[in-house]
């Protein structure tokens, strides 16, 4: 019952917060207890997952709508269990960084907790329809969080986010149902574990269309160029905690879906389409990176850097193109790693940006400067995130990008080289931004500002710890991902990460 507890604890806490959290203190206390409990539970799942045994563990299976063989089916494998942990980590950071929310705190924390539950559900559902339900459920809290507690053009951004995601999921739902009804009667199932390794030829429509249906939904979420335009708006106008969740876990739903469903269920189509994906990946990496340079809003800057960094994920997955190479599993592993590391790193960047904005009330880069003088701790957090983001060795960002490039180089030499140039650009924009906002001469206008309080430091620490742990000892994740990636590689007829 561990996984059900992980999904429903935030729901129960959300109800409690709404009922009891009239005051800010009480609301955040209930939310904090809930997310700490969640983190403990996700650590238990992570530590309790037996990598020697592998496969799907903590399985919970009940009939839900038996007429269509739709099940309440929860399970984790080596691919999803790190995502579950990531969600646990970011959930705690999101509550800590919301410590000062005063406006309607009970509703705010309620939506934040519902969002937690929905995203968690996406990562542990092994039934396609259940997966879809959680996927859609996440829209409602996001819409309210952005439009009610956001800034700027928040209504526009919330609606844009909603419509983009909904449009993507429209294709996904059609793909799911087509897949189900294509199977011979009696074998019809939405069970992802049972669908793995199945021959996907002879569907009601050409298999490529079903593949594309899923791909569109995940490409919107990841996001891939040219479906990324909702992301900068949503990020910029969302409250800090929501930006953290959005960058930290919501984008990961897209990458996870690509690995789990597009690569896992449709290896043949993935092999054919991977070259195109590689092109999209390179464009996303470079386009995102160039656009970052032109941004004057700190949050928009981080948002576009996410587009660029998610391009690496796509590139890693594309390493299976045309049959792949002996190192393709390294590429896939790197893509999964990038999902985890980008979650913590960009989460931390948004925390630091949020803390600066909370104090200076501006995110306009030309107005800022020399903030390291007034707020050294926040500047330190920003720099750790920035350096990890540009792939400094000893941080987790380095490991992920290295694995991706190793995996893809043999398959796409040129694309890898071009994408690697994205790392150079990242170094450029990160350092340049840090120089313009944090360093340089002291600005008297910001003299009254205070540095991070203990709760803010706690929020940053929650994210800094995994960055260094994974950076110094990547095996803790790569072994886990390998267990999850190997069965997917088997679908491509390629060797696993271990072999």
């Amino acid at each position, binding site marked *: 019952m561990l996984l059900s507890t992980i999904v429903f604890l935030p729901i129960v806490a959300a109800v409690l917060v709404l009922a009891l959290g009239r005051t800010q203190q009480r609301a955040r206390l209930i939310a904090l207890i809930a997310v700490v409990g969640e983190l403990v539970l996700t650590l238990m799942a992570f530590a309790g997952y037996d990598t020697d045994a592998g496969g799907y563990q903590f399985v919970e299976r009940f009939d*839900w*709508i*038996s*007429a*269509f063989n739709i099940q309440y089916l929860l399970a984790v494998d080596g691919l999803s269990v790190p995502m579950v942990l990531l969600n646990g980590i970011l959930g705690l950071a999101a509550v800590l960084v919301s410590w000062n929310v005063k406006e309607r705190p009970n509703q705010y924390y309620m939506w934040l907790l519902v969002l937690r539950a929905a995203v968690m559900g996406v990562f542990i559902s092994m039934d396609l*329809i259940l997966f*879809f*339900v959680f996927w*859609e*459920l996440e*829209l*409602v809290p996001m*819409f*309210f969080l952005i*439009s*009610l507690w956001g800034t700027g053009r928040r*209504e526009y951004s919330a*609606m844009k986010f*909603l*419509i983009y995601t*909904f*449009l993507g999921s*429209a*294709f996904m*739902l*059609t793909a799911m*149902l*087509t897949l*189900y*009804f294509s199977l011979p*009667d009696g074998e019809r199932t939405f069970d992802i574990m049972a669908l793995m390794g199945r021959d996907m030829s002879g569907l*009601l*429509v050409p298999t490529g269309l079903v593949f594309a249906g899923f791909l569109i939904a995940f490409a919107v979420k990841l996001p891939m160029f040219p479906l990324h335009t909702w992301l900068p708006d949503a990020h910029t106008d969302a409250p800090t905690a929501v930006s953290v969740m959005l960058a930290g876990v919501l984008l990961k739903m897209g990458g996870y879906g690509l690995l789990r469903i597009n690569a896992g269920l449709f290896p043949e189509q993935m092999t054919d389409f991977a070259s195109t994906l590689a092109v999209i990946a390179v464009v996303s990496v470079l386009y995102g990176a160039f656009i970052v340079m032109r941004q004057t809003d700190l949050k928009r800057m981080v948002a576009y850097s996410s587009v660029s960094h998610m391009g690496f994920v796509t590139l890693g997955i594309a390493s299976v193109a045309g049959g792949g190479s002996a190192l393709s599993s390294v590429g896939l592993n790197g893509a999964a790693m990038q999902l985890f590391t980008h979650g913590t790193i960009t989460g931390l960047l948004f925390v630091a940006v949020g803390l600066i904005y909370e104090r200076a009330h501006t995110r306009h880069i030309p107005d800022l400067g020399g903030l390291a003088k007034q707020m050294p701790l926040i500047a330190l957090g920003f720099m750790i995130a920035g350096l990890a983001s540009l792939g400094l060795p000893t941080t987790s960002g380095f490991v992920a990008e290295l694995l991706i490039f190793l995996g893809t180089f043999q398959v796409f030499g040129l694309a890898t080289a071009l994408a690697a140039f994205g790392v150079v650009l990242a170094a450029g924009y990160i350092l340049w931004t840090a120089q313009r906002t944090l360093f340089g001469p002291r600005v008297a206008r910001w003299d009254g500002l205070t540095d991070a309080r203990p709760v803010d430091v706690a929020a940053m620490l929650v994210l800094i710890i995994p960055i260094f742990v994974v950076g110094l000892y990547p095996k803790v994740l790569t072994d886990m991902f390998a267990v999850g990636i190997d069965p997917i590689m088997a679908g491509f007829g390629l060797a696993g990460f271990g072999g």
Partner: protein
Amino acid sequence: MNIGARDLFLISPELTLVALAGVVVALDLVIRRKGIVIAVAVVGLLVPAIAGVNVWNDIRATGVDTAFNGALVVDEFALYFKFLTLAVLALLFLSSADYASRFQPFQAEFYGLLLFSSAGLMLLPAAGDLITVYISLELASLPVIALAAYEKMRLKSTEAGLKYLVLSAVSSAVLLYGFAFLYGATGTLRLISFDPADPAIGHMLINGDASVPFGGVAVMVGVVLATAGFGFKLSMVPFQMWTPDVYEGAPTPVAAYLAVASKAAAFAVVLRLFYAGLDPAAADWSLMFAVLAAITMTVGNVVAIAQTNVKRLLGYSAIAQAGYMLVGVAAYEGSGPDAELGLESVLFHLGGYAAINLTAFFVIMAITNRTGDDSIEGLAGMGKRAPILAVLLALALLGLTGIPPTVGFVGKLFLFNAAINADMVWLALVGVLNSVVSAYYYVGVVRVMYLRESDNPARITVPPYAWAALAVTAAAILVLGLWPGGLLEVARLAALDLL
């Protein structure tokens, strides 16, 4: 023709309902307290409900039975709609008690007319021949003309009544003309026959001319005219024009009645006519309904975006929802293990849609009854002025959009399932993409409630009996959304009666 005790037993729900109408109107003459009259009307509905349960038990034990020499076919399909009508009536009486007090001194007649019309709606799904279809339809429609014009001092209301009168008359004439063609071509009025010596329309079609749709020009003209006639009642494009005008002008409870009860019965008779009566020509009408479904939902959704009046918006939404339901009508599979899928999904969605739409109408009724403003902008600030009503309306609108965990999601899921099962992947895709369009205007209303401030901070109060009705419908949205299995099974058993 002999009328036996058995015939009277089989129509006992309708007979008691008509008796109740008489009692309510008569009581009003001698009792001053209108609350008692309403209470009698609500509690009195238990009598036809109990009669219905008796009939249900009986036909479950002995099988489908006919009354009045086959004029009425009493099966689980018909009973499904009878219970739906009764439930809608009871909820409508509870919620509109406040609203209807403006009809004094004709308040009791208002209930009486609703009860008479409902008797027609309850006979309609049981119709075994075309004459019964026509008579039941008129019994259902004529009181509605008076009801639509009930606020006779309000111009829009009388306009709505007049529109409904004219269009009802036209559609009835078209329908009768179509029936005449069908009779002329096949020599029978029977929709269903259990007597080989007296075959039904369908038997006459089997040996038709294969080169002409429906096996003969006369039959084709008859079917097209009948479809047009029913199209008015279904709000199907291109016969939808009256819907927004009448919804806007008629008293809100009447609009709710039209949107839910009247539409359900119209679908019932269409299903009966095509699935039971004209099933040999399914290949022809299935495609016709698929195209009409796609056009209907698209027109409804696209035009709804531009609406500024919330009742007109619900009118266009009703057109769009009719389009979704037509998907299920089109999804004819003839034989095979899932042949009942299309029918079953329409029945399920009509039930779920009743809960959702009634919630929406009840909230609008409660709010506009206090504010007197039925523009969408009039809902501004309701998140604060009427927090619970706003949540319920938001829930209903999410349900209409089809977002989980509402019954709207599972309802659409089943409809699209049926479409794909019938090899109409394109229709399912049109359906899900339409849902995306609809999200824009449904969520737009939510946005007004929560993000627009109102000058008037006065709280909206709601009488307890209206709360009771809202509690039932809102609970149904969630309960049926999370545990759809029970209603689905009931719908399946009802659907099997037609195959």
